[in-house]
């Protein structure tokens, strides 16, 4: 026995896969999502003693039960998708912009500032133009500041963009402190200066805007010269330089685009949804968007799926928390489990596990 044990090989070894058919990859990912949901169900039984079927049903109810919930799901998904689109070109270029939260907030703040100072003083169509311009320009500038430092002095863009988020939050607090004379810290919604509404739901204009942006971004990244340059800079800056791409220019241009899209998200949040601004208005979606974009492999079309998944999870788990009177951190737990499974399944897409067949004895396989 002992002699045999010393010869034992590991049970399996890992080999990198050459390629895997697309449908196969998709299947693995779908299986991962299902496995995560099953795992969550088991967890619900084990920790909260909730009937797992009621748990799943509650999740579905939370997202889809009434027309209002379905529209709101689309709305949440659209805002998340918009910010995800914004971070995508920079990430593809390997510029780690984690400042989408602040860029969106600044865009929203600029929108609110225009509504606050110019609302009722200039003709409405002009007001809308000013709101759109202010949102896009301000967020663009907010994104360009770290880009300029990166392009000129090679500063660390991750830290820089992160810090800019905190500055943006303070800026919002400062403005609210000055604007709201009662000192309540709550800026009353300026609903009458909101962007025009049309279509079957109040959220329809937001959803439509983001749908159009998604297609445009897909085309831009896939078929334009700019999109190609972004890919090359992302793959290797030296290669990019060698083939004559002006890397600094690409960095600045791409961050400006990122900022502009965040600005639009801020515009939709303030001008098209809330009509007011607060420090919690972006609600960490600037960070969630990074995940959404990454999970979709920076492909805007896949992002429709991933942003839907995250929005569904958020709506669903909120309902679970309401129905079963458990803390809302359940929402974060479920989302985290799901991400863990999805990211984990990438391992099985990249590698395959080979079981080692023992040499000794009767070979069964």
């Amino acid at each position: 026995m002992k002699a045999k044990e010393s010869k034992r090989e590991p049970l399996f070894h890992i080999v990198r896969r050459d390629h895997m058919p697309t449908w196969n990859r998709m299947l693995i990912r779908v299986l991962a999502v299902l496995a995560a949901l099953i795992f969550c169900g088991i967890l619900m039984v084990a920790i909260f003693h909730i009937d797992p079927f009621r748990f799943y049903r509650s999740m579905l109810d939370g997202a889809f039960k009434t027309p209002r919930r379905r529209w709101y799901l689309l709305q949440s998904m659209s805002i998340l998708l918009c910010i995800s689109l914004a971070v995508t070109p920079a990430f593809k270029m390997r510029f780690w912009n984690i400042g989408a939260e602040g860029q969106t907030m600044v865009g929203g703040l600029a929108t609110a500032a225009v509504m606050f100072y110019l609302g009722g003083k200039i003709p409405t169509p002009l007001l809308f133009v000013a709101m759109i311009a202010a949102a896009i320009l301000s967020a663009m500038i907010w994104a360009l500041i770290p880009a300029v430092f990166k392009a000129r002095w090679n500063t660390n863009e991750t830290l820089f963009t992160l810090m800019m988020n905190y500055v943006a939050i303070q800026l919002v607090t400062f403005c609210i402190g000055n604007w709201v004379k009662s000192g309540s810290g709550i800026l009353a919604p300026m609903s009458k200066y909101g962007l025009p509404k049309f279509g079957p739901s109040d959220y329809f204009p937001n959803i439509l805007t983001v749908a159009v942006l998604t297609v445009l971004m897909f085309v831009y990244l896939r078929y334009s010269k700019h999109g190609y340059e972004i890919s090359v800079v992302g793959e290797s800056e030296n290669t990019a330089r060698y083939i004559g791409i002006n890397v600094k220019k690409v960095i600045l241009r791409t961050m400006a685009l990122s900022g502009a899209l965040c600005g639009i998200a801020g515009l939709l949040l303030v001008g098209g949804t809330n009509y007011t601004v607060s420090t919690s208005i972006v609600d960490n979606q600037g960070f969630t968007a990074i995940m959404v974009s990454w999970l979709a492999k920076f492909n805007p079309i896949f992002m429709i799926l991933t942003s839907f998944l995250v929005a569904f999870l958020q709506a669903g788990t909120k309902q679970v928390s309401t129905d079963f009177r458990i803390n809302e951190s359940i929402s974060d737990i479920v989302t985290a489990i799901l991400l863990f499974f999805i990211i984990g399944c990438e391992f099985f897409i990249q590698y395959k596990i080979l079981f080692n067949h023992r040499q000794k004895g009767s070979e069964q396989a």
Partner: protein
Amino acid sequence: MSKKILSVVLALVLCILSLFAVSCGNGKTGGDGTGEGTGAQQGGNKVKVGFIFLHDQNSTYDKNFMDAAEAACKAAGLSEDQYIFRVNVPEGNECKVAAEDLVDQGCNLIFADSFGHEEFILAVAKEHPEVQFCHATGTMAHTEKLANFHNAFASIYEGRYLAGVVAGMKLNEMIEDGTIKADEAKIGYVGAWPYAEVISGFTSFFLGARSVCASATMEVNFTSSWFDVNAERDMANALMDHGCKLISQHADSMGAPSACEERGVPNVSYNGSTLESCPNTFLVSSRIDWQPYFEYIIGAMKNGTAIDTDWTGTLKNGSVKLTELNTSAVAEGTAAKLEEVRTALENGSLHVFDTSKFTVGGQTLTEYMADVDTDAAFTPDTNVISDGYFHESEKRSAPYFDIIIDGITRLDQNG
């Protein structure tokens, strides 16, 4: 061998998957048909209440509401499906979404607990005249005059005054035993925003303290957030560094009380007792008990009677409360003194904002125009001083005392 294991695992996965698919199917079909307004039609009573809270139990402010709501619903005999709690609802469009969703689920009474919810609730109230909407801390019901939109608050300044008496007694004790000199009796106050609700609160607290400790002064600063654990802790520490010997706060996290416990500085809390986590420094806490209000509105729904447009809870009707004293930390004789002051407040022989007890810029106030009717420019519109005192929470339930009196220093402006 390994192939067998693999196939078994796969079979298992498939089994679970099919189970999941079945559950999905059930969820969808069941979800569409049933469940609409079951609570509303149940039994003889027709109440289904939807509660909207800004945060969850981690906020002392919301916990105070949630506990009261739970107790009131139980006391009124409502079953579990007759009340819904929505937590972490921000003061934006989400509030409107939550309120509309509660209407969709058959709620006929909807309550929201945070100031910034008001305009969103108001918008939903206009669209759903068949549903009653109640909003705590708001200011607009008495001017909007909608039949289904109501505000509520409590004369919490009375509670703050009583808590101030406890603080003043503690300062006296520290002076007597030589820990501090009389002119060092400085209180530090962590405020959220320089809003009338906060100013009214710290002024009444200060007046209570000064009524027993004549040399007391107070420094106030603001975190510019209603809920920010770190900012509140840092500010409490900064105030203690600045020489404050006792801390109180009007902000909704455990930041300030826990900073006090770490440094052994007495703390007067708000929204509820912090005795459990601060056994050495917690003195007392004033709070609004919302249970009487919740019972009142649920009762009104059951009986089909109208709900007051603007309801003010008081010391007398049990809405303004002090928690139990921390007997190991408060000064001797505090309980007896509190009883005496409470009786005086209740029988009207003592007014918290008695104009003979404070000055503003060295002058005694004889009249003051407050912004009672909310408008965009916050125009002062109503004289609130008569008969020798400032009539707080009488012209409307939400506080409007927004004067900085002598003895109180706003650090955000002067320091």
